[in-house]
């Protein structure tokens, strides 16, 4: 007896096997889709792992020549000089000072902008303001660099005549302006996600708009606002062009924003654009510097993560 007749004799079985086939097809399709999605997600993970691996590998070469203690305690960074010193501190300092200035500008202004856009601006004003603010994100950082060097610094020199042409203050401020939209748009999203019922509760108690925004909405959005700040910090710490152009690329152990200095990123781009041979210690030094940058970013992200956990939304 052939299969066909058997199936024909048993219509129920036909339906079952039919369904099974369909099931199998659907199942297969889902597996394929799942696989594609997983690969997409993995590509990001793999890139990160790859970067860290390369950083570690090349840094290992560096640390074979330079002791970690020197690297972390020496106050000079002159890897390309005859008398080479490999102290990362000046670069870390430059990074922290410029980022600190940037945040002092971007955090208050970004937060205020977010509060305004989310709680005060009418629909129309918001529709006009947001795209303009977000336009800032699209401006190439080179432009910001020259803006700092050729416009902001000369203006600051009118106030502080002794300010040198290369300094950390100008680029720090410009970097701050640059990251305002990152902070404001993310903080605004966080505040707009606060349910209307929370605002109504505040208004119903006789609160004004300002009281509602500052005492209820912003606290309710704390975790999202912190995330916005963390993004701002990451942007500032990782920013390269502005500082490379306007801060002078001269590693200096100072916390005085009126002096020029180099940041980790500025050093990396400076060396990477030069023509040091692969495998030379100068070449390897950029990976050690990159590793420090990665650690710094990781540290700030961790801090942000902890802060967010503490202020987790629970409405």
């Amino acid at each position: 007896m052939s299969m066909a007749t058997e199936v024909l004799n048993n219509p129920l079985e036909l339906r079952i096997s039919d369904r099974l086939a369909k099931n199998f097809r659907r199942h297969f399709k889902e597996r394929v889709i799942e696989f594609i999605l997983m690969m997409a997600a993995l590509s990001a993970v793999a890139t990160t792992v790859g970067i860290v691996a390369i950083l570690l590998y090349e840094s290992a070469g560096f640390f074979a020549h330079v002791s970690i203690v020197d690297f972390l305690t020496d106050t000079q960074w002159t890897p390309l000089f005859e008398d080479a010193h490999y102290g990362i501190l000046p670069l870390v300092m430059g990074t922290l000072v410029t980022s600190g200035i940037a945040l002092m500008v971007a955090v208050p202004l970004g937060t205020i902008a977010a509060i305004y856009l989310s709680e005060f601006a009418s629909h129309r004003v918001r529709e006009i303001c947001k795209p303009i603010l977000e336009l800032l994100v699209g401006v190439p950082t080179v432009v910001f660099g020259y803006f700092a060097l050729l416009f902001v610094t000369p203006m600051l020199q009118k106030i502080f005549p002794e300010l040198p042409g290369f300094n950390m203050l100008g680029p720090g401020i410009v970097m701050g302006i640059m990251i305002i939209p990152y902070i404001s748009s993310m903080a605004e999203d966080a505040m707009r996600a606060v349910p209307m019922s929370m605002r109504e509760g505040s208004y119903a108690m006789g609160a004004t708009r300002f009281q509602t925004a500052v005492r209820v909405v912003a606290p309710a959005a704390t975790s999202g606002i912190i995330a916005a700040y963390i993004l701002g910090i990451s942007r500032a710490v990782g920013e390269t062009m502005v500082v490379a152009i306007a801060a002078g690329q001269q590693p200096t152990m100072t916390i005085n924003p009126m002096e020029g200095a180099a940041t980790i990123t500025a050093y990396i781009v400076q060396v990477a654009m030069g023509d040091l041979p692969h495998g030379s210690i100068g070449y390897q030094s950029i990976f050690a510097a990159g590793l420090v940058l990665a650690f710094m970013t990781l540290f700030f992200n961790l801090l942000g993560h902890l802060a967010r956990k503490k202020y987790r939304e629970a409405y």
Partner: protein
Amino acid sequence: MQPTETPIKAEARNLSFYYNGGHKALKGINLPVHEKKITALIGPSGCGKSTFLRCFNRMHDLYPGNQYEGEIVMHPDNTNILQKAVDPIEVRMRISMVFQKPNPFPKSIYENVAYGLRVRGETNKRDMDNKVEEALRGAAIWNEVKDRLHEVAFNLSGGQQQRLCIARALATDPEIMLFDEPTSALDPIATASIEELMSELKNKVTILVVTHNMQQAARVSDYTAYMYLGELIEFGNTDTMFTKPSRRETEDYITGKFG
């Protein structure tokens, strides 16, 4: 009506309301709210109960394009609180509200209750402590929270959160309290405690409550208003309304034949 009735605290006079799109959600409502009594608003979903309630604290002012017509007159001062010249914040200082879903602020239990006082510029710590305690006692939650006043309010259970919101609304000594389905998100036990609480509260404050629950209206309220499609169909003593309503629609709704 009977001469034994208590004074009227507020009354809606020919009140109509239009939502932004022009939808007429209330149609010429006349309703007295008796002082230190509980007035229940009942009616099928979408008939305008919340809309009506939210006129009393000018909540509709928060959204653009909404429009009131007619008056809500508050006594004894005889002010029409819907007048443009009257600041909605002034109105909300006198009339507080408890919402359907408990909506505590992301603050400590203490700060939640103190919120209205702070907004009113109260700074004296001693006075504040006293008023917060009094409000929490008034909302029958003091014993449960007195040892954790500085914990964040979200840790409380739903029923506790709702009583906290009642304490919050109570702390500022309002003349009228509005309740919009205050127990619909709660279990029967929490509901019973809130109902009991409302019955106690009416000794000192006038209450207007929206409810979907006929038994609740019958249990707690002194007066009942039945609304349908934006109109007030019938208003009267709760006992009368539930035993011999004068309108057929009311009877159908109350007995569950419709709605």
